[in-house]
């Protein structure tokens, strides 16, 4: 089945999300769709799935124009979405999730799970998905859950599969398996749209590439004739350097030491299991691992948001296990939190107010009776220039900034003071390429000024690019350590360690 978008334009108020987009999707082909956050990828896909209707232009299926009225129309026409955030009910079985909404039934509305299981097995066998139909979703690893999402759209007889950032949650090994499935689907005649911002993946799996920037298709090409630099330039609109330029680390004394730190999470599971690690001044230590293996809890313990059940945290030789968050701050610990909306900023505060969240009490800003607002505004304006936060005014709501600028605001606040230790968790999540470059540069600069830097990220590329030393977390433990001086760590070995294969991974 072929689908074509012809001159599709979609506006939200004054913002043009899609501007006269032409796109051809062909059966038996993997179309790679590349673009930064906010480039208009999601809008385009929502048009294809029927959630939005275009203001101009038309959609053609096998040459015939169609009209989508609502969210169900896309799948009815054979276009299926696999969302970045899984749409699965964790306490249902695979079969229940797959048939939900189109259930086989008997008399009295009876849910025929036996038939459902058989149908799931049939699709399983056809495409080699190997998903157990009777397992509960919550018991399955993320990679398998993703296959359940694919099963769901196949069960609905989709001929076009739209995969939105499908590899974000997978380990490198799982990514390889996943590519195998994508190729099998393509060979079975399905049309695949693979949306991503990861350049090497799109070069590996796509048969044809379209690049989207500011709502327009700005480039089209054959992956065999393109390289990462060319693609990145198309995507961002200017040349981008990837490799973070940095000199070899000059590690000094111990800045942060954890000894035997263990913790039980709220859900009663072991979140941290006897973690012992050190971050020295003048080095970047990266924590690699699939999300949910204790990284969040590790950062919480270090920054004082929770107390460990057992073990010691030392900062510059001082025991800070039970110290307050503010005490840690004043001792020179900076924290860039993993979810800026949850714990990094206040959406409804102005940019200026957000900039002093960690220092408003300081004598610099606080007089005996009130906060010295002119001083705050002036300082915030200076930070904005320094960190390239693009805003017409510091009096605007923090929440009104784009994701990249919000993150730069948080980074500015945390790094623009005397720091000794920087804890950066997912420092570039949801941030465009230009801002990523800048944030990375600042983290390296902090290192070169003698800070200890700890980076936690689910993007292995980021860890590999920044770290001098890499620790891998799996099920709450540090399972492997790699020396990454000059980027020499073995990517494959790290991937194996992330999946829990510990033997022989210690390097």
């Amino acid at each position, binding site marked *: 089945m072929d689908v074509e978008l012809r001159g599709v334009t979609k506006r939200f108020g004054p913002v043009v999300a899609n501007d006269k987009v032409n796109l051809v999707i062909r059966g038996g082909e993997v179309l790679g769709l590349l673009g930064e956050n906010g480039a208009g990828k999601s809008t385009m896909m929502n048009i294809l799935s029927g*959630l939005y209707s275009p203001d101009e232009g038309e959609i053609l299926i096998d040459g015939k124009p169609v009209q989508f009225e609502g*969210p*169900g129309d896309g*799948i009815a026409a054979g276009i299926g*979405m696999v*969302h970045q955030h899984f*749409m*699965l*009910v*964790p*306490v*249902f079985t695979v079969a*229940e999730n797959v048939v*939900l*909404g*189109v*259930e086989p*039934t008997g008399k*009295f*509305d*009876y*849910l025929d799970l036996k038939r459902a299981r058989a149908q799931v097995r049939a699709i399983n066998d056809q495409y080699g998905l190997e998903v157990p139909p009777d397992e509960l979703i919550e018991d399955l690893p993320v990679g398998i859950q993703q296959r359940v999402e694919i099963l769901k759209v196949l069960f609905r007889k989709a001929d076009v599969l739209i995969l939105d950032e499908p590899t974000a949650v997978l380990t490198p090994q799982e990514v390889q398996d996943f590519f195998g499935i994508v190729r099998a689907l393509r060979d079975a005649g399905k049309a695949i749209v693979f949306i991503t911002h990861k350049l090497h993946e799109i070069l590996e799996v796509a048969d044809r590439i379209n690049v989207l920037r500011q709502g327009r298709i700005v480039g089209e090409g054959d992956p065999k004739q393109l390289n990462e630099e060319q693609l990145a330039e198309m995507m961002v609109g200017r040349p981008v350097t990837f490799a973070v330029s940095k000199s070899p680390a000059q590690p000094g004394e111990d800045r942060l030491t954890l000894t*035997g730190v*263990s*913790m*039980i999470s709220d859900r*009663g599971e*072991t979140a941290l299991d*006897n973690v012992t690690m050190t971050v020295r001044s003048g080095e970047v230590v990266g924590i690699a691992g699939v999300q949910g293996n204790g990284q969040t809890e590790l950062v919480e313990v270090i920054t004082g948001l929770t107390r460990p*059940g*057992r073990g010691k945290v030392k900062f510059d030789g001082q025991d800070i296990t039970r110290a307050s968050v503010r005490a840690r701050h004043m001792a020179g610990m900076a924290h860039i939190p993993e979810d800026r909306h949850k714990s990094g900023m206040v959406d409804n505060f102005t940019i200026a107010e957000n900039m002093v969240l960690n220092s408003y009490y300081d004598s610099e800003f606080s007089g005996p009776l009130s906060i010295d607002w002119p001083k705050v505004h002036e300082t915030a304006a200076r930070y904005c220039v320094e960190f390239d936060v693009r805003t017409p005014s510091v009096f605007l709501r923090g929440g009104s900034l784009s994701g990249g600028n919000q993150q730069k605001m948080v980074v500015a606040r945390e790094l623009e003071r005397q720091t000794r230790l920087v804890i950066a968790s997912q420092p570039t999540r949801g941030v465009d390429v230009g801002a990523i470059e800048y944030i990375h540069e600042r983290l390296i600069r902090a290192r070169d000024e003698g800070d200890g830097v700890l980076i936690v990220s689910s993007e292995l590329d980021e860890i590999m690019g920044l770290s001098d030393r890499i620790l891998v977390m799996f099920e709450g433990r540090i399972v492997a350590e790699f020396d990454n001086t000059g980027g020499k760590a073995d990517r494959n070995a790290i991937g194996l360690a992330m999946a829990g294969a510990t033997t022989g991974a210690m390097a």
Partner: protein
Amino acid sequence: MTDMTMTHSDKIDLSKARQTRVGGVILILLALLVLFVLDVPMGSVATFKLSRPTDAIPLGDLVVPGGPFNLVAAGILAFLGVRQFLRGGGRWTSLSLGIGFAILVLAFLIWATTGKSFSLTGMLQATVVRAVPIALGGLAGVLSERVAVVNIAIEGMLLAGAFTGALMGSLLGGWGGLVAAMIIGGAFGFILAALVVTYRMDQIIAGTVINLFVLGVTSYVSSQVFSNYRALNNAPVFRSWAIPYLSDIPVIGPMLFNQNIFVYGALILVGMATYYLFFTRSGLRARAVGEHPRAADTLGIDVYRTRYVHVIMAGMVAGFGGAWFTLGSVGRFDENMTGGRGFIGLAAMIFGRWHPVGALAAALVFGFADSLQQKMALLNTPIPSEFLAMAPYIATIVVVAGLIGKARAPAADGKPYVKE
């Protein structure tokens, strides 16, 4: 190495270990309570009647020697306590505590009955009757919380059902009153759904508003109007209807098969709800809405509509349960006559892990406590009747605070859904 690991997990499990030890201490205290307070003289016996003289199949009386029984009971409690203290934990904690409390209740029953005779069948029959409004309240809770609407308003719906049952029953007869009670319950369900689904009002506040509104209106009418026009508050009562043959089975017959329409109705509704929620297409969709509404929405399931339908159904079930207070027992409405049964119903829902059958079983526990206090008042125990009247509520606290393991509510419970 093994030692190291032991101390290690010991320390991080500190709160768990403390909980385990508290369980042990409670059990040993119960053993002492049975041994010294519920002390029964060695020679005396407690007589439990299993059937009435009119029954088709008469059974002999159950005669229990009180002294030895309570000694054994204290022994078992002490054993469980020590065991719990030394190596309890995990699911053993709630299991031992559950067994412990059951033994305590038995010992208490023997102690109170010593030297007298007591109709066991009568008490079990009353257990079932008293469980009905709690079970129906719990079932209403299951229906609405399975689609993620927290329904605090069940108390108000019960009260509205009781009031409407009495008023319309007086005017139209029993069946008319019953139908009207269900309609009014459904109407309050609709109001709750409108407030929390469409207007996304806080679910606890919306429920509380309904409770206060119903309490105010019904109390006003009953004190200002019913007192002057007694004919408006004089409804017929549904009598028990014995199912032929089945009602002749000893003990079980009078418990289950010689009851009024509310008992049969509750049992049938629980069965239907179980089939509906877990074996039908609509049930699967309803549960999906309660667990992951966004996923249900992307698959073409109308989240808002599903929530409206189920909260209205819950209201109708609660209205039916409310009618029990008037049409099923005294035929007359009194101020606040539901006395918090709706909230106990919610406790039954949690104890029953959001499953209709579980809620029914939990309701029977509460019904037992309720009927126990009622029958004990007749036995002239030295305990003041006010303390006995607390039994159902104490049972609620013990059950909710102590015995519930890791029951898990539907994931989206209480959260409004906003379409994108």
